């Protein structure tokens, strides 16, 4: 395997961190410590991990309502994320965004976005900035979105724009088979969404999105192309979400047990563990040490969130504008 030890450690840490973050977040949600709706991404750890393994803070990603995995893979702090979900002043967005709007511009993370499809052109715009500044080699744009989002017109507009303008963009479609309860086989008129890429003058690649090594390889090629100024690539990552659409959804109402089991058997974390131990790239002890560190990190994140203060009442009126000092406080 052509992946450095550090990278392997990073990949395992990242996937395990995503998994445990979602589980911890759900626990906190059910305890009533989240202030709103949350969409867990456990099961889908491989796509953000395999892709972001190639990125630095100068690269940009756009994300969705199911964005925690993207955030973590892009290096966001899990304590600030947890605090955000708890609506605290110390949260990633000061408690004003919540789970569906976590962003960190210092890390190259353009924000989770709760309008399906709406973040796709933002990543195209980030790539445009890179091209404009002549730094494509160090700054590409990656747009994460789902199978459901593939039906939004703005995806197609974005693909055409990226191709016409030859921008360094990766369209990373996480096809988890469902948009809410609606199966992709019903809503998507192509057997592989990636098959649409050709009509937009770019390569379209179908990838096993439960296998982080497969994702890593495909993403590596796509990102190298982008950095070399060769334009966009479309990746369709076939994956699965273990939980329901949002925290309170029971997916058993619309998914078959066999199907769920099929993907559980392909669990990306177990697959990683089996691969690296078999190939003697990492020891069981090493893996355990990583897991332990992540467990502690989660305890810390919850504690940080719980102990953090609420935002100031004045935050309601702040940051509507930068250059506008006279907020309109509801005309009361």
């Amino acid at each position, binding site marked *: 395997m052509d992946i450095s030890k550090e990278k392997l450690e990073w990949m395992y840490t990242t996937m395990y961190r995503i998994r445990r973050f979602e589980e911890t977040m759900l626990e906190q949600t059910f305890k009533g410590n*989240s*202030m*709103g*709706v949350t969409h867990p991404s456990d099961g889908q750890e491989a796509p953000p991990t395999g892709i972001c393994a190639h990125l630095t803070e100068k690269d940009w990603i756009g994300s969705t309502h199911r964005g925690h995995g993207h955030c973590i893979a892009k290096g966001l702090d899990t304590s600030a994320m947890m605090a*955000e979900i708890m*609506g*605290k002043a110390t949260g990633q*967005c000061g*408690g*004003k*965004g*919540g789970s*569906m*709007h976590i962003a960190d511009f210092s890390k190259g993370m353009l924000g989770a*976005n*709760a*309008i*399906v*499809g*709406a973040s796709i052109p933002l990543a195209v715009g980030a790539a445009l900035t890179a091209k404009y500044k002549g730094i494509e080699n160090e700054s590409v744009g990656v747009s994460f979105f789902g199978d*459901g*989002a593939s*039906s*939004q*017109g703005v995806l197609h507009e974005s693909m055409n724009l990226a191709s016409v303008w030859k921008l360094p963009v990766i369209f990373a479609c996480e096809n988890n088979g*469902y*948009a*809410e*309860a*609606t*199966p992709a*086989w*019903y*809503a*998507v008129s192509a057997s592989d969404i990636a098959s649409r890429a050709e009509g937009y003058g770019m390569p379209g690649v179908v990838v096993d999105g439960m296998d982080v090594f497969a994702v890593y390889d495909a993403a590596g090629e796509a990102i190298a192309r982008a950095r070399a100024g060769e334009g966009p690539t479309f990746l369709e990552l076939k994956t699965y979400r273990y939980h329901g659409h949002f925290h309170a*959804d029971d997916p058993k*109402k*619309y998914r*078959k047990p066999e*199907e769920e089991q099929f993907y559980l058997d392909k669990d990306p974390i177990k697959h990683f563990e089996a691969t690296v131990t078999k190939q003697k790239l990492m020891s069981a002890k090493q893996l355990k040490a990583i897991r332990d560190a992540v467990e502690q990190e989660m305890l810390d994140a919850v504690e940080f969130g719980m102990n953090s203060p*609420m*935002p100031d*009442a004045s*935050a*309601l*009126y702040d940051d*509507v504008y930068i250059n506008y000092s006279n*907020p*309109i*406080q*509801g*005309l*009361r």
Partner: protein
Amino acid sequence: MTTSQANNPLGPGYDGVPGKELRFRDVFRDTLRAEMIRDEDVFLMGEDISGGFDKDTKEPLDAWGGPFAATKGLVQEFGPERIRDAPISEAGFVGAAIGSALTGLRPVVDLMYFDFVTVAFDQLLSNAAKSRYMFGGQTRVPLTLFARSGAGTGHAAQHSESFYSMLAHIPGLKVVVPSDPYSVKGLLAAAIRDDDPVFLVNDKKLINLTGFVPDEDYVIELGKGRYLRRGTDVTLVGMSYTSIACQKAADQLAEIGIDAEVIDMMSLSPFDEDILIESVAKTHNVVIVDEDTPRASMASEFAAVIADKAFDHLDAPVKRVTAPHSPVPYNRDLEIAYMPQPEDVVRTVRKLLGHE
């Protein structure tokens, strides 16, 4: 129903009629069902309204009962042709609904969260609202749309909008805002039977509310408001969920000896100018309460109509209690502060009447 007779919050003719205490969401679903039975050209369209499909049989599963359970059970009863599940393509399927309305059907579109209107905005404004006029009256667009608005559920900036004023701004589109089980039954039925495009805005906070609903079939005339409470000292104007905030405020005001009249606008476009003028002519004071953001809003519009047509009746400035000019914040405390609360209305009235 003419507003001047309406002494009963339900409207005239509803004293002592048979009916039940029902939940808003159940009334909503039952009204959809009744209209689909009444007219076989009526069909529903929206994301997830069949709640998934069985992989093997291809049968709809109704796993969720549609967004907010608004269509629960309907797909089993009417089948997937009349409960048409749509991919996530709001512009496309709203456009298709308009096309079907132009060619003889009566589509009813569930847009899920009100915020998603923006994605289909061009189809609504350029096609649904303009077709009749720009084609010289040769066609009609009997389309109904509905979606859930409002803050208060921790959904943050992109799932909590109340910008119905932007829809009411659009000539050719009608906009209604039920505020209780009674009004949603009459307004939804009226919307579906109307030959113009109508948007029904449904505040999330109303969904589990219960209230008395007559058994009989009835419609509420589009464009009419109603009195929820009669009073002499000040007029409180509510719409959608703020009608409830106004009633609560009126209760609190009564305790300190202020007798407030409460109007529930029910329709935003067209809207009932007469009821506004009639009430202000009596009370000489008015506070308009709106969860939408303030600039160029329906609160502004009602204020402007009063400042023009009821000017001579006014004893004091026309007041608005609205959301701030900001997106909806996530944090619960901030979100509560964002929404006009009964206490905000009470405070405004006391200041207005010099009762401090």
